[in-house]
């Protein structure tokens, strides 16, 4: 058994005191130790973006960060995106309305990517949005509706 260290993570406003090996990635800590399996792992080498979350408001690949590095930060995952059980975040709603997902495996990563972008810059134009969206991979949708959904969310959030 390798040595573990205690760390404290703040995720979606909740405090998680967990014991982990220092080599544990933030993605694994969220999934296995905090029970937040909405963050997906598609490659574990930083390319696909399925594991994208927000750390202090900035999109981060959770598979490329050690959990110990996230101490003291404020983390947001897909589970924390909707304000409550009744409503969806504008980005979630736009993905639903514009058919922006198929198998849904990439979806949490895209949602966090777009939510992070639009919360920082609600008036993101299409060209910049294309750049942003090009950081993640989707194997199902061909991206067409992901772009449409993201622009619809931009319109709502900037409007």
């Amino acid at each position, binding site marked *: 058994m390798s040595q573990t260290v205690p760390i404290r993570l703040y995720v979606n406003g909740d405090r998680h005191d967990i014991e982990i090996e220092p080599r544990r990635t933030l993605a694994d800590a969220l999934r296995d130790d905090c029970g937040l399996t909405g963050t997906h792992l*598609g490659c574990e080498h930083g390319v696909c973006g399925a594991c994208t979350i927000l750390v202090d408001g900035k999109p981060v690949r959770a598979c490329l960060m050690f959990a110990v590095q996230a101490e003291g930060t404020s983390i947001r995952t897909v589970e924390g995106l909707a304000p409550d059980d009744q409503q969806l975040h504008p980005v979630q709603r736009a993905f639903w309305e514009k058919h922006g997902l198929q198998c849904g495996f990439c979806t949490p990563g895209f949602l966090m990517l777009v939510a992070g972008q639009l919360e920082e810059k609600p008036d993101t134009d299409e060209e910049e949005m294309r*750049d942003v969206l*090009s950081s993640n991979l989707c194997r199902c949708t*061909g*991206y067409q509706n992901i772009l449409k959904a993201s622009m619809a969310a931009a319109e709502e959030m900037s409007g």
Partner: protein
Amino acid sequence: MTAVVPPSWTGRSLPRVEDPSILRGHGRYVADVAARDRCWYAKFVRSSIAAGRIVGITAPPGVRIYTAADLDGVGEIVASLARPDFVTTRQPILARDVVRFVGEPVAMVLAETEAEAEDALERVVVEIEPLPAVLSVADATADQARLVHDVDFPGDPNTVVDGRIHTPGFDEVFAAAAHRVSVQVGSARQSAMPLEARASHAAYDPATGRTTLHVTTQMPHVIRTGLADVLGIREDDLRVIAPDVGGGFGAKMALAREDVMVVHAARRLRRNIAWIETREENFMAAWHSREQVYDVEGAFTEDGDLLAVRADLRCDVGAYSCYPVTYGVEPLMAMAELTGPYAVREYSVRSRAVLSNKCPIAPYRGVSRPVQVLAMERLMDVAARRLDIDPVELRMRNLVHEFPHRIPSGLVLDNASHRQTLAAAADLADVADFRRRQRTARDEGRLLGIGFSSFAERTGYGTPAFAARSAPFELKPNAVADVITPGFERVVLAMDSSAGVTVRIGASPHGQGLRTALAQVISDELGVAPDEVRVIHSDTDATPYGWGSFASRAMVMAGGASLLAARELAGRLRTLASSRLGGLPGDIDLSDGEARHRETGESVPFFVLARDTYHSSHLIPDKGEPALEATATYDPSGTFANACHVAEVEVDPATGAVAVTRFLVAEDAGRLVNPAIVDGQIQGGVVQGIANALFEELIYDDRGVLVTTSLMDYLPPTLHEVPDIEIAHLETTSPQSVTGAKGVGEGGTIGAPAAIANAVSDALAHLGIDVNHLPATPHRLRTAIRSAQAAQAADISDRETAS
């Protein structure tokens, strides 16, 4: 009373019922099941050698390891067809004595956490004595070729399928034709690469002795059959669940050796065991496809009528036969469907599957059709140039336009709109305008090109379609057929005593929105809203046997079965209602959750009819079963969707990079149950086709080691590489599909590579470059452009010297 015409739910782009849970992060994929469980983790020691003899496997004490020696009672995976040319080989669960490809599982280790399992993996030493690896069709079929499997090959060495068709009139027509045009096309090996790699989680229940397997599969029932057969247990000892599945594209419809191990270990150790595949393993060992080379020759009249096609089709199928569809899947589909939508009279074809020391193949979206269409559509463009006929005109001449039409392989094309989709696409494309833009761009040194691709997408393969792959065989009186013939879909539709509607389906969706689409079909028949229809799927304990979701079949097959069941249930509701309201069942309309007498306007809620049925069954009129339930099976021979794709590209002569600047699809998938879902399938399919055409390639080195094992080497496109995709729909229905829907899952991927190859060839026509082998990577194009330019320069200087 005027009859109230109920609104049709079918045909509307309803948002999917699947989405809210996924959007909230509540999707349940296999790894999520494992993350919530204190299970042990399995990891696989894999061969790093393409071909060799296992000399020793050692692990330090403390490492829990399984090798082939620990598999007493476990059988092998055998996937076979009843054909005289078919050679059966066997796939052991862990390599025994020999290894046959890099990535082949040799041993399994178990540990309490995934990280510890990874540590254990590193401590296992496998010693393998290398043998010469067979890495190409040419090597594999040479006279003294080393055999990948030590079995008898009646024909050429390593040739496991060798299909032939030769129509009686071929020789004469072919010899007499005015023009013979030949092309060789090919595709690199590719990976379906679902974003979720493979994964399984087996939970042993000591109370019942049963094991529940969560596995990321497209066909849970069939996988259960395969597992039970290999493990020598009864199917009811196993429950197989495909929870949310993160994409399949064919790569999740084959029985995985790793899954057999996970179930075996869970049963032996009476513990929960999970295996989560890494992306690297997925590239090495989770099925490849598309490594095919086709030589195709067309015989044309002076006017451009394509009379006859001769073809030699070769598929490198890797080291093993995938269960259940076998390694015949690529060559046999190609042999049957090559001539596609063209009215070819005579046909002579040889189609082979050849073994190699590479990862085995399995279906990948479109199977061999992307290469078939590449062959026929390159043939059309090359012939158009040779015969000096406009390429659209040449296609138009030859497309089948009277239905049904029997093609030389024996398949029957049902109602379709080949000419109309081509016309629609040509209209949208405005070729004259493009040619103007192309000339202007050329003056600026920019290379634009346009390419067409017309094709038929066979969909909804039922049992008759799969049975045709085998020679007719007799069932032995007391033994099972050793051939698996997929096909039918079955559903059980029920209204419970609270009038809730549930349909249990044998198909198993993984992102196609089937729950939404089936609910739309059923709700129209029953007169309820789609969100009142619950669709239960992907659990062998809860659903009838079915073959799953693959080959663009779910909407045709499960949709057809759902429609038939819904009609039957609706009939029963009408009977019950007429006994309450008077009149005949035919006088009753069903809508808004109630049955209404068309003349009197009197109505009774379904809730009352349901309560009658279950709770006052002694009173129900026909003394039928005290249940509102209908079971239906649908098993047509298959239908054909059709489409025409048009690509515009710009090639950068300096780098060889291709930008797809415009992409058009004129699609006829029959009746659109949910247009948004259909468009989503087309868009996703086209992007995979663009990927296949320009980017994706699995590369083995000359020792048979796969070098493209990460997403930094294998390059699925991002949004940057993808244009807007414009789609136009035609809706030709066919008697081969009761819903009118024809299936659309693969068309995008089938047609796009050919359209792009034609477009890039058009852009480079002035250099005499034909793009026939995909992917057309920057390196390949740049090399071709340079050597063409050098040749032209040499030509010019030759001529100057001569003058």
